[in-house]
């Protein structure tokens, strides 16, 4: 057993346990934390696979920004605990069954049907360096890159619109009604 293999199995175990922990945790915050652990593990995997830039991006964006956002919302909504039994008791066993089937299929695909059983060749140190990524990003994939920025803008606008308080709308309505009153009688708007 080489060190890489050992490292791989250890990390894989951690990742899977973290995923399971996320799934079966009763507390949503615990789930989020487990997920962060998972992400971190996967980031290490990225490093092992020779993708340093991506690993950093994973940690920064996913674990750093997205999961923090998750935690914010969990706190905001007070969704730490969800009680009650769930209806439709047949859902769970069927879902588990289907998952197992999927795993079996995937396993079949990977180990029986493919011929990629072998190690990979080593690569240069600057194989997937930021420079290389950046070079590719700004030449071949310039358009998607720019559109992604537009996408992010759209997401921002959408979020703002979706989370707008209803109170503001009510104020708007009051102003409209007051405006009407003013039109009917020269007296200014009375009390609220």
């Amino acid at each position, binding site marked *: 057993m080489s060190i890489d293999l050992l490292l791989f199995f250890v990390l894989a175990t951690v990742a*899977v346990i973290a995923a399971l922990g996320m799934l079966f945790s009763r507390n949503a915050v615990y789930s989020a934390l487990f997920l962060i652990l998972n992400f971190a593990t996967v980031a290490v995997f990225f490093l092992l696979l020779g993708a340093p830039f991506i690993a950093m991006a994973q940690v920064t964006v996913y674990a750093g920004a*997205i999961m923090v956002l998750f935690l914010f919302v969990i706190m905001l909504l007070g969704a730490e605990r969800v009680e009650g039994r769930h209806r439709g008791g047949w859902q769970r066993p069927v879902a588990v069954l289907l998952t197992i089937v999927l795993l079996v299929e995937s396993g079949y695909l990977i180990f029986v049907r493919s011929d990629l059983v072998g190690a990979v060749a080593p690569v240069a140190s600057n194989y997937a360096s930021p420079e290389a990524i950046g070079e590719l990003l700004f030449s071949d994939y310039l358009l998607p890159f720019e559109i992604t920025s537009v996408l992010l803008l759209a997401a921002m606008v959408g979020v703002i619109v979706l989370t707008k308080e209803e109170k503001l709308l009510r104020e708007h309505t009051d102003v409209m009604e007051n405006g009407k009153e003013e039109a009917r009688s020269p007296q200014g708007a009375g009390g609220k």
Partner: protein
Amino acid sequence: MVPVSYYFALSAILFALGALGVLIRRNAIIIFMSVELMLNAANLLFVAFARMYEALQGQIYVFFVIAVAAAEVAVGLAIIVAIFRTKKSIDIDEMSSLKG
């Protein structure tokens, strides 16, 4: 070296777990997180293939996936917040208005 198929297998397991989470949990946010897990598994697969074929395109795709995932999480959470305001709950079993 680690055979790249092991990475495939790991990705499959993580994906399956993420799918299971979507189907089993009732908390909308947990479900969302399971979706993120699935995306992550896909990313891992991409990078593994990129390594195998020594093509950087795979990593570029991951880059974009991460960016889109971020945008998607933002909007999705905003929706959940908006739903919470009316329903006062994020139990997806209570959001059954489409029942026919």
